[in-house]
């Protein structure tokens, strides 16, 4: 199946050029194409028929992973493959590597980008709940050059909806600063390996030297209303000692309750809660271990 006619194709070389196109230069029905691994599906199926495409591939500045005084900065056009293979990403943000390393398949990971995933905000996506669970802050810029920082929580709205306004470009994803002894993990379940998640979870834990969780963040995706943080589970994890399976399960049960899952082709709603407990245990266990520096990514 083929795209409907696309009148214009732009390939800006800079953020400024891209935002100018967005603010009117490319016309009303212009779409940004990052890696295009989701957008091209929508374009080929003609659920979306853009008059113009703004391809960001030439904006080299958007493709980087570096550290600043607050923590980690990932350019919006950084591919999943680059994130998954970056050995410098610390345990606090290792969930990002878990997620990026299991999106789709190798080919998709080579092309797909973190920024594209966040701006598309598909229900069954890996990166949105991960950035939510890591309390990422997103940096956007408009044609006037105004930059604004938005928390992932505010940015990610319902399915396919975000806080990005039509003249803004997502520039970077900021993570941190993270407290010492913080570890995170992301896990998902799909009917076949690495499929779009039927349930997924991102867990980030700050753990004391006594192996007791001080702070926890839990985010779930694969919900019909978009990704969400689960405060009940976060509260329940605070004070939990590493390896306390019963307490961890109780927290995950709270997460499952709050998830409000719907049945779909792959699993019924009650079973999704079971799956969440399974992958959640794994995520919590790995996050604990990473927090205390016991395992790498």
């Amino acid at each position, binding site marked *: *199946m083929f795209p*409907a006619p696309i009148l214009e194709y732009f390939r800006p070389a800079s953020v400024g050029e891209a935002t100018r196109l967005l603010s009117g230069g490319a016309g009303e029905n212009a779409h940004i194409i990052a890696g295009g691994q989701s957008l091209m599906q929508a374009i080929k199926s003609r659920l979306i028929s853009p008059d113009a495409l703004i391809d960001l591939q030439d904006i080299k500045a958007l493709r980087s992973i570096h550290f600043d005084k607050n923590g980690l900065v990932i350019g919006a056009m950084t591919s999943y493959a680059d994130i998954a293979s970056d050995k410098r990403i610390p345990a606090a943000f290792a969930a990002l590597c878990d997620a990026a390393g299991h999106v789709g398949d190798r080919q998709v990971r080579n092309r797909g980008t973190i920024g594209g995933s966040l701006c598309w905000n598909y229900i069954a996506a890996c990166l949105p709940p991960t950035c939510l669970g890591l309390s990422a802050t997103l940096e956007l810029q408009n044609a006037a050059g105004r930059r604004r920082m938005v928390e992932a929580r505010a940015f990610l709205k319902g399915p396919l909806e975000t806080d990005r306004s039509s003249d803004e470009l997502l520039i970077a994803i900021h993570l941190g600063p993270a407290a010492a002894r913080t570890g995170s993990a992301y896990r998902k379940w799909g009917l*076949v*390996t*690495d*499929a779009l998640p039927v349930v997924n979870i991102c867990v980030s834990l700050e753990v004391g030297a006594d192996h007791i969780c001080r702070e926890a963040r839990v985010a779930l995706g694969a919900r019909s209303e978009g990704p969400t943080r689960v405060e009940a589970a976060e509260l329940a994890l605070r004070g939990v000692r590493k390896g306390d399976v019963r307490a961890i399960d109780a927290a995950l049960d709270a997460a499952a309750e709050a998830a409000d899952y719907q049945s779909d082709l792959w*699993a019924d709603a009650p*079973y999704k809660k079971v799956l969440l407990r399974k992958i959640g245990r794994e995520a919590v266990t790995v996050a604990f271990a990473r927090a205390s520096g016991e395992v790498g990514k």
Partner: protein
Amino acid sequence: MNAHIRNEGDWVGASVNRKEDRRLTTGQGQYFADKKIPGTLHLVFVRSQQAHARIVSINTDAARALKGVVAVVTGADIRTQIKGLPQPVVVPSFAANYPDFWPLAVDKVKFHGEPVAAVIARDRYVAEDAAALVEIVYDPLPVVTDMEAALAEGAPIVHDGWASNEMFAMNYTGGGTPESEAAHARKVDEALAAAAVVIRRRFRVHRCGVTPLEPRGAMATWDDDGLTAWITTQRPHIDRLALSDVLEIPSDKVRVIAPRDQGGAFGVKAPFYREPILVCHMARVLGRPVRWLETREEHLMSVSQERDQIHNIEIGADASGRIVALRDNAIADNGDGCEGVYWGFVMPFFGAAVLTNAYDIPLCDIRIRVACTNKAVLSPARSFGAFAARFALDRAIDLLARELKIDPADVRRRNLIAELPYTTATGVHHDSGDYAKVFDHLTTLVDLKGFRAEQARSRAEGRHIGIGFSVGAELSGVSSAVLVSMENQPGFGAATVRVDPRGKVQVFEGDAPQGQGHETSMAQVVAQEFGIHPADVSLTTGDTGTTPFGSGTIGARGGSYTVSAVANACRALKSKMATVLLHDLKVEGVPSDVSFRDGRVFLTADPTQGKNFAALAERIVMAPLGLPAGMQAGLDQTEFFEADVPMLTFGAHAAIVEVDPETGIFKILRYVASDDFGTVINPIVVAGQVHGGVVQGLSNTMFEEFVYDENGQQLTATLENYKIANAADMINIESHHEAGSACPHTPLGSRGLGEGIPGPVPAALTNAVCDALAPFGIEVNRLPLRPNTIWRLLQDKAASKG
């Protein structure tokens, strides 16, 4: 002779690298979509978004007005221009309700995905633009998507004018009159009543299929010579006759070519479909080449769906586990039933006919009803019709074993057909072999005794491992005796072998392989017979203009029928060549005194007396002087092979799994197949067939499912939603054929294989899962086998225990 042993220098039995692979690994394959003719127009179908609705109006103005569009056609346009189906050549010799249909829907649509209109344009992109502009107004009708509901009183009727949705029904046993059938049923009742143990269960197998990676396609040209059509098809010769009938073109004016390389078929490309008819018709109407290339979405919406059966089974056995009687009331969901050759119901018909599998069951009462619903028609899929039947019976046997507290392997072995030949209650002929030996080999391979000990230890540690068995007596070619009634076609295998004056051998096969490696297997046989190298043998397939008539690459006939025709043709030519050699050497003798080896033809008794193979061929073809009296010149031979009895291939499968009872998630630890393939022509090719067949079966069982919602909307028309197993989900399948024995009914002793391999898979896997969870006592009698299902059953069980 052990089937797998071969002599040094033999080509038959050697794992020869395939001749096909150089071109296929370098991108030089010639698949359907790779064939291009300048000036070709592209046809795109507009398909129904409704499952059941009257067509109120179709507005094609906007589509026609688009630049680049050449034509837009609807059912109303073509129904007077061409004949619809059914046409005799593609109708089985069975009494059934055959729905009338045209390539495009007329008056009403009957499933989500039915072609309603077609756009022909200068390129595919424009054709798709125009297709989006065709406006169709529907008046929705009540939808029926459940086979039992479809057969109930008062159900919405899928086909106008039908009294009910029953397309086909059959009682296989009991003699054919209502009285004799009733009497027979009473006999079965009595046997069941007298049995020490009776199992009664309903088994439900979901809709899934084989979905080759290359979708379908058709391209046609029309000129003074008539119609030439390139079609992704397993049976070009049948398509040719059918096109001739439907389009009312003399058959000598129709040539059908199946591309040399086809990207898999597994049965899906065997029916005579509606789309190629329209492509050919439009090429004639427009006088230009027209091509249609199926999208994956179309493929998943309209073909490649099979299985979808319910089996209500009763089996009775004595205390030792010997089955004394079997009853099955089976139902199949055939969608709209519109498809040439099979009409969807031939698969479930066949599945019920082979229900008893390789088991000796003396008394059977087997019936089937096939319903039409608002879904796509069933299309053949590897393990033709039998997939569901295999699941039902081999699950029932496990339940029987559990009831009797006997190991399911023992119960199975006890019931295997012990003495061959054997004819089942439904009339299926089992020809030869030793089923028990093949099965015993399997239990040895998996070390059943050792496994049971390990299982006990594991359970003590809280690990749940289990083993499951199943068997399959599968098609090894299909004889005319079966095929004439089932598909209205002959069953023979056909091949022409031509030795050219340079000593190269050309083989012409009327079938159309799709990845089975015929170029290599046939070359190995020819090389073996003539004592030449397989590199000197070429194969031409699938072109009705150049190949002998054959019914198609179906039912594992490559290794049984076609290869036998090739061998017999070689032998006839050898006899001729040997006769000429003796004649030229002025030696008294018979052809069997002459050997063919290492590129030479010589007297066995005196190897110095002989000729190069090529030189002898040149002498006969190019210098046909002084030939033996009465002998014709030339070295072309066409043979039609038909075994003297219908043949089967036997295999036994075992799966070993570990299940997590908390989630129902299971892992396959081992999957072992022990098969009897008779004389194996190419062991590595055979192993590949087993691996692929088993993985298709596993994928069907665990992942794949065509889902229709209650409105008949098909929700699984992408590979995102129709999940196929990937490499990470699968393991190394273990394939063994050492326990096989040469088939006495074929010249090489080979048996056909490949077709039925997925059949035993769902029962083996499900039995293994249930065995692992035996302490919980759950029964999985419904597919797909998914963690969710297992978990749900465990929950229900726990709840019922309170």
